[in-house]
């Protein structure tokens, strides 16, 4: 029994790390521009698919990954430049529909480029499983967890200690005030979309050896990332990470002990319950309405 729990925890944390990265991407864009970017999952798909394509073309894995990141960052820039910026001042629901339109557009483009086939990368360092206390870990699981920890720490460090990170945070507090102290708000917005796209691309590259990818793989990952960000309390990076890991573990335990068909239902039911008890997520702040 305890073996099973350990095994489910391992797969839960692996998937949860990916949700956390996607959720973190949501948080960065939300903080910078008050937009819930429903095209976030598409970053993951584009990152994964272009890494596979470059790798198939004979480019060494590490360079293929870097190129895939650059492609995705460019997509992120384009999203900000051509979809979000021109719609400045639109209502929340309008921006939601714009990002949904963008995600459909990107999915359509992916369908044209890659067709409906499934793609995968070879695992980064072999498929030899490691046995620990009755559970099995694939090297790729370790890659996912390890790089996620690195990325998350880097992002948190970036926002806490660098001037650039603080400038982005200043924009998220108040655009006008940030402009007044000499921050180029437009540039910071562009940067946050790029950063968010890069996180998405890396999440995609990390998970594609385990789960495969296709042109519509971004939808579910995007949804889960959104759920992670909301569960933790939107706008709070730590919340997104906690929410992502929790969601991954819940799903994995639900699939293992109750029913794999109902695993998403279990996860969403728990999210609903959490929201009923804490309407602003686990780590979110209560928002006061002003009249």
């Amino acid at each position: 029994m305890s073996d099973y729990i350990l095994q489910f925890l391992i797969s839960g944390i692996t998937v949860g790390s990916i949700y956390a990265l996607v959720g973190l991407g949501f948080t960065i864009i939300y903080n910078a521009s008050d937009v819930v970017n429903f095209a976030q999952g598409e970053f993951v798909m584009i990152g994964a698919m272009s890494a596979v394509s470059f790798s198939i073309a004979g480019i060494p894995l590490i360079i293929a990954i870097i190129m895939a990141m650059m492609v995705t960052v460019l997509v992120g820039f384009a999203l900000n430049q051509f979809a979000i910026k021109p719609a400045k001042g639109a209502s929340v629901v309008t921006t939601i529909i714009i990002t949904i339109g963008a995600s459909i557009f990107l999915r359509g483009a992916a369908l044209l480029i890659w067709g409906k086939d499934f793609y995968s990368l070879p695992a980064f360092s072999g498929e030899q499983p490691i046995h620990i206390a009755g559970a099995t870990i694939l090297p790729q699981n370790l890659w996912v967890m390890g790089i996620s920890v690195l990325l998350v720490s880097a992002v948190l460090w970036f926002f806490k200690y660098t001037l650039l990170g603080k400038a982005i945070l200043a924009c998220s507090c108040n655009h006008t005030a940030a402009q007044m102290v000499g921050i180029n708000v437009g540039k910071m917005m562009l940067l946050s979309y790029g950063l968010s796209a890069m996180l998405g691309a890396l999440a995609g590259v990390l998970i594609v050896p385990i789960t495969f990818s296709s042109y519509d793989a971004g939808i579910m990952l995007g949804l889960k990332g959104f759920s992670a960000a909301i569960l933790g309390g939107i706008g709070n990076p730590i919340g997104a990470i906690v929410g992502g890991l929790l969601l991954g573990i819940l799903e994995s335990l639900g699939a293992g002990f109750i029913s794999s068909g109902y695993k998403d239902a279990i996860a969403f039911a728990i999210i609903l319950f959490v929201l009923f008890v804490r309407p602003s997520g686990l780590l979110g702040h209560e928002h006061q309405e002003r009249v």
Partner: protein
Amino acid sequence: MKRLSGFYLLSLVALILPQIFPDNYYLTVVGVFATLHIILAVGLNLLMGYCGQISLGHAAFFGLGAYSSAILTTRYQLDPWLAMISGMVLVFIIANLIARPILKLKGHYLAMATLGFGIIVHIIFVQTEALSGGPDGLGDIPTLSIAGWAVDSDIRWYYVTTISALGTILLSLNLIASRSGRAIRAVHGSEFAAQMMGINSNKTKVMVFVFAAVLASFAGSLFAYQQNFVSPDSFSFFFSIELVTMVVLGGMASTYGAVFGAILLTFLPELLIVFEDYEMLVYGAILMLVMIFMPQGLFISLGHQLTQLKKNYWPNKKPAGDQQ
């Protein structure tokens, strides 16, 4: 008379069209879907446009209505009308139960909760195979008959769904013009201020939510009888998003906007078929462009443009009043 003049015009067009084109595919097949979408979008618009509460799970109520009708008529041989009413009662109860906790949430949290609810209901449709037929769906659903007049041809269905949709539009127009309608709009403006004026904002939100849900259930039952078949695919997260898009694309807080959005988004995929592989790309691009350049929605933005034109040509004439 003046307030409802748009409605009379719409009814006239909707009922004359089949006289001119009785066998037109776009009218009697796609048109039936458009009218069902109108019922859904007009209901959702009451909740989203007028009351300001987003719902990304509205397809769940549509599905609950459809499956209630499908299961009760095929597995329990219930009369289609009774099955439809049972579905509406079931949805009334479920909507009432979840509305209170869900509508306490705001903004993105509300979006998340309704999204989660929609996905849970969809998974239940897929998983309860013994009852719902699982992913393969449920067929052989009988059709409706109205006092011996069986609704068994495309054109008859067109009349039934069109009249239902017109009824829904009339209901929505009248509701919004009433005292409750003003309460609903006040809650949208500011819940706090509405409470100050003695409006029970929670009760108002719950009422609109339940009303929209029951309307969706009604549309779902019609859908099940018209298709004679239901499967979970029709009630997924994507359909919820599509409904929201209809409301926003047409123009929020406008009943005619919702009607316009529903018609447009039903016909758009039919027209985009010519783009073949590029269909999805073009669809996404249209959605983005419309929302970027007309954030108020097509119907309202076009209305403003017309008013502007009118002003330019007849500068002394008073501009037209607010749209309903």
